[in-house]
């Protein structure tokens, strides 16, 4: 397998980002901790510096530092049943251990519960710890994604109030031109990200979901800046060349699989090689799709944010099932790998129902492996590999059956 050259830029991008983060105060920029479903474009327009604690925690996990820091959070009284991103973040602060020289102290915590409720609780802890204000953008989801005018008003009011809070904090008023610029950059990054994900529909797929996980850093942390746009521009150029030359991420793509949920960050390298050795290519994932629909318009960004937070990202189970069924067709999948993630109840609790419904509708098998996205103490990687191995055997015999024309093959 040929490594993707564009990914080499990431080291510098990451170092530069955290370098600037630590310089923010000196550069008169307020530091805002936030999450993916917050209007980060506003923060850039106000010349503030957004930081994503989840992202920092993911780096802790990927660098295999979770077990150095999470126990410190547990020592503070945070149970091992809580989200391991939060435990790694709080533990990293407590233990003073971090791959990014820590994170600079925030001036504001901005969180939106269109994602999970856990983040609000975690940010409440940070707010008390740093004694800084917290703004929650509260999104009351409708249970089946049906429209709700009162909720739209409520969310919009909060977003509009946020502008006033940011203006008061920074002592300047919102620069509409800068907002337009950051909206344009953010939308462009999100569109490029989508284009990249869609390249996975090619046979063979030029990149795997593991590569996407590695490539996520700029879309997560720098959506709204030129850095993300430039990086994904160059990455896509390289991937399109690969497609033109029929170069796949795997030399021998036997199985095309879907990955549900967050990565298992501490096992990224190991599971990637494990699957590669078996010709199994993860070609798409629900997780990486989250960053693909984040663009808003310059004309009515508030309306678009409301729409996204209330409806687009309302991951109710029927919508998820429909989406997976579409992906099965679009990506010509052979099966589904579901990571039932102990730490992310929000995205995991529906998995058994989804698996059954998707298999029923597509005829494609799926396997559920229970693990954790950041805490290797909560799973045994060998057992995950065994489960995946058995699943691939099943897919293999299905393929053989199909090749021999027997019923039951896809």
């Amino acid at each position, binding site marked *: 397998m040929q490594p993707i050259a564009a990914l080499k830029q990431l080291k510098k991008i990451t170092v530069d980002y955290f370098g600037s983060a630590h310089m923010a105060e000196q550069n008169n920029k307020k530091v805002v901790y936030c999450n993916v479903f917050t209007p980060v474009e506003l923060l850039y327009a106000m010349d503030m510096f957004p930081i994503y604690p989840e992202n920092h925690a993911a780096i802790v996990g990927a660098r295999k530092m979770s077990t150095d820091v999470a126990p410190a959070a547990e020592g503070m009284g945070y149970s091992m*049943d809580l989200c391991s991103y939060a435990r790694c973040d709080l533990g990293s602060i407590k233990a003073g251990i971090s791959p990014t020289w820590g994170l600079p102290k925030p001036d504001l915590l901005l969180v939106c519960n269109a994602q999970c409720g856990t983040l609000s609780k975690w940010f409440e802890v940070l707010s008390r710890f740093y004694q800084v204000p917290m703004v929650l953008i509260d999104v009351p989801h409708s*249970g089946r994604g049906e429209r709700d005018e009162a909720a739209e008003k409520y969310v919009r009011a909060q977003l509009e109030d946020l502008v006033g809070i940011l203006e008061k904090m920074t002592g300047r008023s919102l620069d509409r031109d800068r907002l337009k610029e950051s909206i344009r950059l953010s939308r462009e990054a999100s569109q490029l990200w989508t284009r990249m994900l869609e390249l996975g529909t090619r046979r063979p797929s030029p990149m795997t979901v593991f590569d996407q996980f590695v490539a996520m850093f700029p879309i997560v942390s720098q959506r709204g800046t030129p850095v993300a746009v430039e990086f994904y521009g160059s990455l896509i150029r390289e991937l399109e060349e690969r497609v033109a030359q029929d170069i796949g991420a795997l030399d021998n793509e036997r199985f095309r699989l879907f990955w549900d949920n967050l990565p298992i960050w501490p096992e990224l390298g190991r599971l990637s090689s494990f699957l590669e050795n078996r010709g199994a290519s993860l070609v798409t994932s629900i997780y990486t799709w989250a960053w693909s629909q984040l663009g808003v318009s310059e004309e009515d960004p508030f309306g678009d944010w409301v729409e996204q937070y209330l409806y687009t990202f309302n991951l109710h189970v029927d919508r998820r099932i429909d989406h997976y069924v579409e992906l099965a067709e679009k990506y010509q999948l052979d099966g589904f790998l579901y990571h039932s993630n102990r730490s992310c109840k929000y995205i995991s609790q529906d998995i058994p129902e989804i698996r059954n419904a998707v298999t029923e509708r597509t005829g494609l098998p799926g396997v559920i492996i229970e693990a954790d996205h950041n805490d290797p103490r909560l799973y045994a990687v060998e057992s995950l590999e065994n489960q995946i191995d058995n699943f691939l055997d099943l897919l293999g015999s299905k393929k053989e059956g199909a090749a021999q024309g027997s019923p039951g093959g896809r």
Partner: protein
Amino acid sequence: MKLEDPWRPFHQVVGKPLEQARLWKERTGRKVIGHLLPDVPEEILHAAGALPVAIAGAGVQISRSQAHIPGYSCSHAMGALELGLQGDLDLLDGMVIPYVCDTTRNLYHLWNRCFPTKANEFLRLPKRMDYPAASAYLKAEFARLGDSMGKITGETPGREELAAGVALYDKSRARLREAYRRQRAHPELWTSQRVYELFISATRMPREEHLAWMEALPWDDETQGTSERIPVYVRGKVWDPPGILGLFDESGLLVVEDEIVTGFRWVAADAGDSEDPLDALVRRHLSTVPYAGYHLEPSRMVGDFVDRVRKSGAQGVIFLNPKFCEAAGFDTPDFHNALQEAGIPDLILETSSRGVSLGQTKLRVEAFREMLSADLP
């Protein structure tokens, strides 16, 4: 004529939680609607002509639900689903699941898939308790709930029905508050276990009847208790494990106030009169002590809590934290530290931990009591 044991009927309702609802349904031919407690306004369900019945999952033996929801979910969600899958909830015509956390959000999805023929509703509660726009939103949401319940029962509640519902439930709350207070003066007669049964049974039968039954209680008996009890304050979700209050009684602890969703918190605030009864319900909701799933300015959440504990006169605090509950899990360490700073001892019990017996909990509760009594001047 006085009933022989006026506590017995309540005890029986708790033992057979859906029996009264079944009898009522047979008698009236009307609809029974279940709800998963935290802050579902029963008044609205009542005003739509339905009987609201609280469904509690804690303490239910888990088996079938494991195929539908991962084992790292709290017992309230798993237990409620289990009851449904066992067929225990077949009687229900609908179910209201409130948005309190990610787990109930997902439980609502699963409920629809597991029980597609029932009318299920997700009550979209706002999380911000100290934000002005939240009350307008909540009012609209309560109105939507009324319409939705009306679709099930065929009677969309109007102003009059709502006002009657509010008056009835306020009256019931006042009576239950009084019962709760009696624990202090007469802890031997008004034991925590008995008061608990009064509260729980109220959520499982027609409230008018419950009020009538309560009249038979020994309100006039002024016999003072002799045993010395240590006042404690409890924060948590529900009385879990279900035998916990009996255990407090045995250990000589007296719950003087609590933030349990089926405890004092549930009856602490009345809705009162208002031109529009929905305004009254919104006011009641927003003045109820916020459960861990809600959001307030974060340092206020802790500061207000310590103030409440101080005011209650409790000598210690017990946390009943359901295993796998993120909301409680994130709050507790800071709440605990603030109590320590205030010199108030506490005991953190993780409830519904599979493999932890009531006996083990008892040991810890007794040790805590010993510690508190040693602390007494």
